[in-house]
């Protein structure tokens, strides 16, 4: 019998080259059954490329990859039958209605007839789109389209659900709706692989995270672990720090990240320092707040723009 705790995804030395360009650079990771695994990284980090290897879109240039204990190279069809993928780019079929999008897609998994239709209607209810079932795709809002694309990934009742930036470009209401659906999937015990640019999303939804940049893994751990390891509990932000403030900080040997407008500190005893700072520079506009995953992310991947 297969071990129930065996990883759903096992990647070793996973590598992808586009010509000479290394998009994914010898990475190792496991995704365990039932967890929501977050893949974070700036644009161009290699997240989508990693995901495309996982759903057997193209083979790795190097390394080993297996899903559900099956090698990706030889069992692509079996693997794909057991996972659902919601890609980063919109790919709903504009030539078909909302319901037809699901029914036709179910057929690719060899699910046909009344059973497929029942499942499609059930999923439309799950994403609150039953009232739009005969509508053309062009008539849907951005949030509705994304929900439908997520529902489409659930048609085969997959063990592993892959969501590549499922909330990018959505308004706050739609984002919350998507989060709610993802939490629901977690409760159902599905294994989820999620990429996102929203750190609050990763912090609330993901059990475990992997931060990557330039094709390499920078960090791995649970959100609280990563916060504790890299930025501690509290953060001090100083808006437009004057030269005196900087000198004062440097004297104390305090490292800070700096942009043109602000300095960000992750000191060990933040509260005491914050009060000392306020006492010494009463006019200084500074604040003390809880550290977030975003602080970790920016600390690890830097603040300069990508692309």
């Amino acid at each position, binding site marked *: 019998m297969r071990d129930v705790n065996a990883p759903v995804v096992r990647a070793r030395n996973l590598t992808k080259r*586009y*010509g*000479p*360009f290394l998009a994914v650079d010898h990475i190792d990771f496991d995704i365990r059954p039932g967890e929501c695994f977050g893949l974070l990284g700036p644009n161009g980090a290699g997240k989508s490329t990693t995901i495309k290897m996982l*759903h*057997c*879109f*193209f083979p790795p240039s190097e390394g080993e990859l297996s899903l559900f204990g099956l090698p990706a*190279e*030889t*069992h*692509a*069809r*079996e693997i*794909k*039958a057991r996972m*659902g*993928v919601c*890609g980063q*780019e*919109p*790919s*709903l*079929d*504009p*030539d*078909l*209605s909302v319901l*037809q999008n699901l029914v*036709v*897609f179910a*057929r*690719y*998994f*060899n699910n046909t007839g009344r059973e497929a239709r029942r499942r499609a209607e059930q999923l439309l209810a799950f994403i609150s789109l039953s009232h739009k079932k005969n509508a053309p795709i062009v008539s849907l809002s951005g949030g509705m389209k994304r929900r439908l694309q997520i529902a*489409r*990934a659930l048609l*085969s009742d997959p063990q592993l659900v892959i969501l590549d930036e499922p909330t990018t470009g959505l308004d706050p209401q739609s984002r919350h709706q998507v989060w709610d659906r993802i939490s629901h999937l977690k409760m159902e015990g599905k294994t989820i692989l999620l990429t996102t640019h929203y750190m609050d999303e990763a912090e609330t939804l993901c059990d475990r995270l992997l931060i990557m940049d330039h094709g390499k893994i920078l960090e791995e751990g649970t959100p609280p672990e990563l916060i504790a390891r890299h930025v501690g509990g509290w953060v001090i932000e100083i808006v437009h720090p004057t030269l005196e403030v900087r000198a004062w900080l440097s004297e104390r040997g305090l490292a800070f990240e700096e942009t043109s407008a602000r300095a960000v500190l992750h000191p060990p005893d933040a509260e005491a320092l914050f009060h000392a700072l306020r006492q010494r520079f009463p006019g200084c506009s500074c604040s003390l707040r809880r550290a977030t995953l975003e602080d970790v992310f920016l600390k690890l991947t830097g603040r300069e723009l990508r692309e």
Partner: protein
Amino acid sequence: MNRRAHGLSWRAVRVWQRNLDVWKRGWKINFLPPLLEPIFTILAFGAGLGAMIGSVTYRGQDYGYVQFIIPAIISISMMYSSFFETSYASFVRMYYQKTFDAMMTTPLSAYDVIAGELLWGATKPVFYTSILLCVVSVMDLFVGGPPFLHYPDSLLLLPFCVVPGIAVACTGMVCTALVPHIEDFNIPFFLFVTPMFLFSGTFFPLDQLPDWVGIVAQAFPLTHTVRIARAATLGRLEAGLFLSLLFLAVWTLVFGWLALRLMRRRLLGTNLPG
């Protein structure tokens, strides 16, 4: 590459079914071009040009001009319908709609997707040919003289049309695998489709042109399609036509292989420079 995991399978039919479903959704509009276009062509060329030309000699016998060009018009609509499908229409599905990317996240392989598109491209001429056979048969009822369609031989066009259909669909798919932008389909239209349209023994017999044109024309799938179609509608089927059928089969093998190979490379995005 592992064949069972990434090769061709019966699942290609699912892609064909998707296209059929889309076609059925708009069947009222999809029905019009195959109905109207050839009627216009027959009217313009037949009534207009035919009055000037009178009769044409084909394999030692004289035929009315309309009788002569009707099989060509049917053959051209076979070619256009399948070429259009795997060029412009497949390109839109691949590039703008990301339909193939979505399909490839399911148990379908890239080859299944491509083969399903080719099958669909070969199916389009079935609609066109059946509608045309009906339209011309109705014309036969009202126009006197020798019939435009010799029955039952003309019924052979229905199973036959999938042969040039698949040959031309494979050619269109090779173009889709290669063109950078959708406007670039102008090139295969200009270099391949239009010369075929004119120089495949369509509107005048090939022996009226310089010898070398006739020889080059033997390399066009449309030449062989028209030869078979004309023999059928005029009731002059003969054993020698097997060579034309063989030509279309070999063309399909060569271009089908190229279509699968080149298109898979394009779908996987591994043919990008750098």
